[in-house]
């Protein structure tokens, strides 16, 4: 009953002890288990671990990429916002400038127009004055002649005496002028 080692041929005998191993199975057991451990260590584990590492790297890489893209988008947005603000500011400045310039132009034009108007008025006044004096002068000589000839005809006496005649006419006109200016002054005051 107490056989220590049981050869395989005896294991097939009548009343075997199930606790005694077969030599061949011991050897094959070690061979198979070591073979499997080596197969896993050399092929399966490295391949799977590499796939896991790649997977982790891919996920992390994707996350980094997304973060980078987000940062880039934010930078672009900031840039565009800054540009927009700048453009707005510039537009406001341009508007302000245009307004100022417009006001300036208007003022200038007004000044110019005023000057022109003044010039025209002055010119007209001068012309009127000149024409008036001309008219006065011509009137004066004409009226004198007319009045003299008329008076001569009426009075019947010759007023050919030039010196006297001139004095009379002058006097008359001076009176006329002074009365007329007095009337004018009263008219404008009234």
């Amino acid at each position, binding site marked *: 009953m107490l056989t220590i080692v049981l050869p395989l041929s005896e294991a097939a*005998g009548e009343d075997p002890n*199930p606790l005694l191993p077969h030599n061949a199975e*011991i050897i094959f*057991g070690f061979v198979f*288990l070591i073979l*499997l451990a080596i197969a*896993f*260590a050399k092929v399966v584990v490295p391949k799977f671990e590499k796939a896991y590492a790649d997977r982790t790297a891919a996920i992390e890489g994707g996350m980094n990429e997304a973060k980078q893209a987000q940062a880039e988008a934010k930078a672009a947005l900031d840039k565009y916002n800054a540009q927009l603000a700048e453009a707005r500011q510039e537009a406001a400045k341009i508007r302000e400038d245009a307004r100022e310039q417009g006001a300036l132009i208007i003022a200038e034009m007004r000044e110019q127009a005023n000057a022109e108007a003044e010039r025209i008025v002055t010119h007209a006044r001068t012309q009127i004055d000149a024409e008036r004096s001309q008219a006065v002068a011509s009137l004066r000589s004409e009226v004198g002649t007319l009045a003299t000839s008329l008076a001569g005809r009426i009075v019947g006496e010759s007023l050919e005496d030039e010196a006297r005649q001139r004095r009379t006419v002058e006097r008359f006109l001076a009176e006329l002028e002074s009365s007329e200016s007095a009337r004018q002054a009263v008219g404008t005051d009234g």
Partner: protein
Amino acid sequence: MSAGVSTEFISPGPQSFNTTPIIDGVDWFTKPVLVAALSVVVIVWFYWGASRKAAVVPSKLQFAGELGYNFVRNSIARDAIGSHDYMKYVPYLCGLFYFILLNNVAGTIPLIQFPTFSHIGWAYVAAIMSWVIYNAVGIKKKGLWGYFKHQTMPAGVPVWLMPLMIPIEFISNILVRPVSLSLRLFANMFAGHILLLVFVTGGDYMLRESGSIALGGVGIITLLMGLAIAGLELFVQCIQAYIFVVLTAQYIGSAIADEH
């Protein structure tokens, strides 16, 4: 029960596990050797195929392989050994787990129907390998004296208890572990197979040889029970493979664990 029995019923026993050489004259080539060799071929073929083109985006085969690999890697090795050093032991634990699993399940697979580990030699081998590994890594990490101190002198035990503790711990941690590992696996496979044999051969005998209608009915019930027992056995076969590898991982983990 023996009334009206025409031929004698030979109850299943240790002799049921006698295996004759498959080829006459080649004594070592028996059914368990063939089944174990086939299991190695299947495991290597499957995992080689699953991991050969391992990519970031897995194929269906790779996904299945990763599922099986991750089960041992994460749920057994990492949980028991700790995330710092477990990777070194994953290849052995993977090979061990799938070797035991396939050879156990061989006891249920039709036409094979022989659990390799019901021959104790295989269980001895697996237990000795695990024993050598966990002691070797412990000694390598802590030194021979440091390792024995670690395994036999639990922290927090008063000094006067040491004469009692050291032999107990030595026996339980160094001597008994390989015996319990191998016997648990062997006995489960051996007993499960005998149980199945009893139900199936007994049922068959009652149905066909007893010549009694009542016993024939009992035989049918017995055969149906045998079917249920086969289902139970399939469960036990998987559980035993798991237990063996979890315990191995735990022994490794406790051998290299730091003192707490």
